[in-house]
């Protein structure tokens, strides 16, 4: 049998455009697998020469799903260039907005993109394996998903003026205080949202047994984990310091601030993808492969910090002796984070300082360099800018969550392909599992375009001469 290649193009139900290729050896066994990101954006280059004060609103345009995350990391990098301590009320408001982003994005990932796999099964008819299939099979779950995402989006609109590409977060703070009316609107929706998060968690836990094989094979391997932790090692999405943890649950590096990230994180480029790959510098590549995002965050922390999420986290940590290694549990971690985010929003809004009118510090550029680090829904997001004497950007580097996870996603695709792909006959369930492991990471490939028409998904099995041996379409 000659060497063959299977291509999944495009990968569906993720944010952005990508494909997967699986290479088989002479005996039809999986030899290698690649996750290719096929889109190119170039933000780091074309922002050169722009005033740094424009960066948050420019960077928010990177993505229509997580503009708030880029807005936040960019504004923090600009705060560092201003060299100001922003008002406490602005920090509080930014935190709430960032958590609302976590809620809406996690809801999108779990309910809209992945729940069809979980509810209907990986082998279900692809024509039904979408949100409409969920609506038919479990309308209550679908209603909960719609409601939760709507609530997260609504908070963003109430606070920042619009749901997509808001510009409310600015260097030095935010550009408008929160009104009591808006605060009350947000608070009024919290009890229902918390109920939804809690019952979805119960549902997910009750379904776990059905996915033993996926739990065992979905990017389930030892790796490092990285993310921000707050004071006392608590769960943190807006500020804090970076921590690396190994698979055994031991802290490898801790207390890394913005200025020190480059000593610990290095990037490399592969010729087969536009997505850069990050690794833990002291260990090199590939030994220094790490994961970020909800699973990593719940692995690296010492505690959650809110009552209900803490209970769930304690249960989650029972899954493994060290770090929880299966990437299938990204879904589980996402739900716990939604609960945490809602509880924290409630706490932050309940303090009278949230209505403080002093929400912005003004200054000129006082530093020639600034780094902003936040936790986006998908993981750690780093914006690093350098400016000249006029405050114009001379250099920018962005390390996004999906880049941190790139090596782990590739390794995950290989693991799933080796487990499920056999010989030269392709099956729909195989196709979906290879995609589903990517979906578990919830990569965001910065999709900002309207798709027209039906998305084609096709796997082709070709022999060494390029002849198609088998094809699966949906």
């Amino acid at each position, binding site marked *: 049998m000659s060497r063959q290649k299977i291509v999944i193009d495009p990968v569906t139900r993720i944010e952005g455009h990508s494909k997967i290729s699986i290479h088989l050896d002479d005996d039809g066994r999986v030899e290698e697998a690649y996750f290719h990101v096929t889109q190119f954006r170039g933000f780091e280059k074309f922002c050169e020469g722009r005033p740094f004060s424009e960066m948050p609103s420019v960077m928010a345009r990177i993505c*229509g799903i997580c503009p708030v995350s880029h807005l936040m990391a960019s504004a923090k990098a600009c705060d560092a260039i201003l060299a100001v301590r922003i008002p406490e009320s602005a920090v509080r408001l930014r935190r709430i907005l960032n958590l609302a982003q976590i809620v809406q994005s996690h809801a999108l990932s779990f309910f809209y993109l992945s729940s069809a796999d979980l509810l209907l099964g990986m082998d279900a008819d692809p024509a039904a394996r*979408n*949100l*409409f299939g969920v609506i038919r099979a479990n309308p209550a779950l679908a209603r909960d998903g719609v409601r939760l995402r709507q609530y997260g989006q609504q908070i963003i609109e109430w606070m920042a003026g619009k749901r997509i590409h808001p510009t409310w977060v600015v260097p030095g703070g935010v550009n408008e205080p929160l009104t009591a009316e808006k605060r009350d609107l947000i608070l009024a929706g919290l009890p229902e949202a918390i109920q939804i998060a809690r019952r979805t968690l119960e549902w997910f836990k009750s379904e776990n047994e059905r996915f033993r094989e996926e739990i065992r094979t979905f990017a389930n391997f030892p790796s490092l984990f990285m993310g921000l932790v707050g004071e006392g090692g608590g769960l943190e999405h807006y500020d804090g310091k970076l921590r690396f943890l190994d698979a055994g649950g031991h802290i490898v590096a801790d207390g890394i601030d913005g200025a020190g990230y480059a000593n610990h994180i290095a990037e490399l480029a592969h010729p087969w993808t536009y997505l850069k790959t990050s690794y833990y510098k002291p260990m090199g590549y590939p030994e220094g492969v790490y994961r970020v995002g909800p699973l990593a965050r719940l692995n690296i922390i010492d505690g959650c910090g809110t009552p209900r999420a803490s209970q769930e986290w304690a249960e989650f940590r029972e899954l493994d002796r060290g770090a929880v290694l299966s990437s299938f549990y990204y879904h589980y971690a996402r739900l716990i984070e939604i609960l945490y985010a809602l509880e924290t929003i409630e706490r932050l809004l309940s303090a009278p300082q949230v209505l403080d009118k002093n929400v912005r510090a003004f200054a000129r550029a006082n530093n020639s360099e600034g780094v902003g680090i936040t936790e986006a829904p998908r993981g750690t997001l780093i914006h690093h800018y350098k400016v000249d004497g006029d405050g114009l950007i001379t250099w920018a580097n962005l390390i996004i969550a999906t880049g941190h996870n790139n090596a782990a996603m590739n390794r995950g695709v290989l693991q799933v392909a080796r487990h499920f792909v056999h010989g030269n006959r392709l099956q729909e369930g195989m196709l979906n599992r290879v995609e589903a492991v990517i979906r578990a990471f919830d990569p965001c490939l910065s999709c900002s375009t*309207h798709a027209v028409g039906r998305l084609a998904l096709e796997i082709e099995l070709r022999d060494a001469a390029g002849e198609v041996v088998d094809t699966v379409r949906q």
Partner: protein
Amino acid sequence: MARILIIGYGNPLRGDDGFGWHAAQRLRETVRDSDVEILTVQQLTPELMDPISRAAKAIFLDAAATGEPGHLSVTPVDPAVMGPASFTHFATPAGLLAGARALYGSETAGVLVSVAGADFSLGAELSEAVLRATEELLDLAVRDGCWVLAHPA
């Protein structure tokens, strides 16, 4: 419950693609009717099923890629379940109506009001033809009420 829900959608930075977005923004500024709720969005998403389910009539304002520039058409929309890739990167008026019916049991009627665009290149301005059609539409809605938008000419 608003009896009419108007959803204007499109990309306001892609020329005439922003017709629905601009028209809805203008309607929000001029229409004072508690029976009318107006939303401006850049694309249709599943969350819209909820407000759609609470309306008697949903009017979708969108640009059309084909047709004589500035030509306005009003077409009834029937609920229709979308295909396998539904709701991942886009939704349709028919899909949202079907989803609202399945999830909330609503009987919301839908209508698509579209204006054929002339120029979809980068830019925040509408072409002259689409601008003229937008003004006519607004005049009509203000003079005769938003219900007039829901009836095919």
